């Protein structure tokens, strides 16, 4: 009892609750100070931007913990340092995304015009030409892949959630996960190895690309549909059973419609995932300069392949080919972003549980 420190032993400053804490405005103020100094260095001293940014980040990494160390002690300083580090890691991740968007837009806009979208490359040597054949090819191949993957994917997910018990279901769950990690080029080799047995070693056609993309797309569809089906409340199933409805009718009329919005979102994201795949198409669909709308007859171009070859074999003079490559990359980028946006809107409108 006598050893406890009585309040009278504390100085007035120590007794204050805010003692030993930096005021709330200290962090924003430090950041603002560093930003202003950096801006001054760039504007007045003409210092290179990356250097200033790097030094600024370093300054924050030192200044914030140092301030905390002086006022709050070692542990709080440590905490500040981790906060800064974690924030820097996040900013670093956004950097490539921003730079990608800027680079692709800047370089792509030069040839992103009406001619590019409405003509193919028939007889084009230098300037001009377009990617109509590639856009159509991409839509056909991805569309076919969707037609193959969605039924298989949804039924597999139905099996896993509604029917699957025991060994087989566990094996399928694990292998679906493993299948997610199959390298895209291996999917292309698989389609080639499969079709070359029947059609010889020079086989190149669109449907092969669709098969290869399906290998990549099915596991993605299965995963997302599985998640959605698991979110359908069991009460709905039980209510349906209680009314004497058979299990398959319950699934078709109750479970799947309930999860429809989520399934649509998942499928859209899966399409966005495979529409930019280049490697498998390089192997099994080949490339062509003219519009081909028949997926079972001959080579078929696609946007990623068009981008790849426009850059690697640009023709003479090369700048036109490279310009077309960027324009195709921009087209592809826009399609993928659009699909992602559609997926977001779908899940937002229907209030599906994908977005927290």
């Amino acid at each position, binding site marked *: 009892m006598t050893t406890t420190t009585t309040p009278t032993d504390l100085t007035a400053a120590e007794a204050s609750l805010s003692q030993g804490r930096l005021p709330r405005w200290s962090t924003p103020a430090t950041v603002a100070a560093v930003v202003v100094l950096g801006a001054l260095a760039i504007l007045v001293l003409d210092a290179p931007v990356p250097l200033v940014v790097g030094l600024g980040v370093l300054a924050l990494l030192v200044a914030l913990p140092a301030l905390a160390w002086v006022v709050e002690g070692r542990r709080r300083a440590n*905490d500040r*340092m981790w906060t800064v580090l*974690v*924030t820097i*890691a*996040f900013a670093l*991740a956004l950097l*490539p995304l921003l*730079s*990608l968007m800027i*680079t*692709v837009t800047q*370089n792509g806009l030069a040839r992103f015009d009406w001619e590019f979208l409405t003509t193919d490359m028939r007889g084009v040597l230098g300037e001009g030409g377009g990617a109509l054949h590639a856009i159509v090819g991409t839509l056909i191949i991805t569309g076919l892949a969707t037609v193959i993957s969605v*039924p*298989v994917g949804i*039924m597999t997910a139905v*099996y*896993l959630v*509604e029917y699957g*018990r025991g060994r087989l279901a566990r094996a*399928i*769950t*694990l292998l679906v996960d*493993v*299948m997610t*990690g*199959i*390298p*895209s*080029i*291996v999917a292309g080799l*698989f389609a080639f*190895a499969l079709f070359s*047995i029947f059609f010889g*070693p020079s086989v190149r056609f669109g449907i092969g690309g669709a098969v290869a993309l399906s*290998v990549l797309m*099915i596991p993605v569809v299965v995963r997302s549909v599985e*998640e959605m089906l*698991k979110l359908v409340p069991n009460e709905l199933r039980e209510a349906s*059973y*209680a009314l004497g409805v058979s*299990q*398959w*009718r319950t*699934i*078709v009329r109750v479970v799947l419609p309930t999860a429809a919005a989520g399934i649509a979102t998942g499928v859209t994201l899966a399409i966005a995932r495979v529409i*930019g*795949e280049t490697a498998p198409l*390089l*192997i099994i669909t*080949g*490339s062509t300069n003219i519009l081909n709308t028949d997926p079972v007859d001959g080579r078929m171009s696609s946007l*990623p392949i068009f*981008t790849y070859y426009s*850059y*690697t074999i640009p023709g003479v003079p090369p700048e036109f080919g490279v310009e077309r490559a960027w324009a195709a*990359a921009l087209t592809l*980028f826009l399609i993928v*972003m659009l699909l*992602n946006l559609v997926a977001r809107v779908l899940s937002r409108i229907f209030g599906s549980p994908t977005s927290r």
Partner: protein
Amino acid sequence: MTTPATTQVGGPLDQGPPAEPRIGSRNRTGDKIFSGTATAAGITILVTLAGIAAFLLYEGFPALVAAPEDVPGGEGFWPYVQPLLFGTVLAAVIALIIAAPLSIGIALFISHYAPRKIAAPLGYLVDLLAAVPSVVYGLWGIFFLAPQLVPVFQWLENTLGFLPFFEGPTSATGRTMLTAGIVLAVMILPIMSGVNREVFLQTPRLQEEAALALGATRSEMIRMTVLPFARSGMVSGAMLGLGRALGETLAVALVLSPAAVISFNLIGSTNSSTIAANIALNFPESSGLAVNTLIATGLVLFTLTFVVNFIARAVVARRKDFSGANA
């Protein structure tokens, strides 16, 4: 982000739909057909995976048994695939070394640091990185990243040139193994930070609050509760990222100017290619046994990624059982 919700709802579901088909019911032909179709779809997955291995083996086998002088390179299959395997692993490991700490930082930022309201949109932004087509990454790597990195490589050569990794001479174009590794790191960041985010969010709330109540700062709380809890999840996330990086094709094919060498020099202009990139570069112009050889290298790549992914998923699956008990 759906996982916490899934575990809640998935709990009761694991016991199966309560309504077993009742005894003596009417004939259930529809049920049988439907469940049969569903099972068939599930088995399709198994058949596809087995088919991939079988067809690759069938088409690649001639290269495995061919006379060494017939295989491209003239020394047989294994000498042909070795530098490629080396390049594949090297590029993937560089990517992993860069991406692992970053992905933990990103995941922590979204799960524990960012204000609650903007956390989900921020996660969505990072996920956008996964949607960018790899050919776009390749172009970005060549035209934007590589030139920016040349001075950095020059500096590395000057200051750290005594290490075999940076002995130079620096490539003038910046299209080096290290550049490829950085591009790969950016590409695998979303999946790795996604997995990390999921496991960080699953840390038992009570443990976190107990740590904070004992006076721990946020970083101490994270080191005492979140990171130990998430350790196996982070390992499997890293393995998944590694699997992605091993199989990535076009970005590497575009960025690297390959040669059949084994070299630890990360900033020079001669780099070993990767299996996937080598297939992409050579397949369109190959015929005969060259095609079989490339397919056989594809089989090697498939085996490698399969093993890596399998281990990663097995770790995750085991972990799920534990977290079920915690939740």
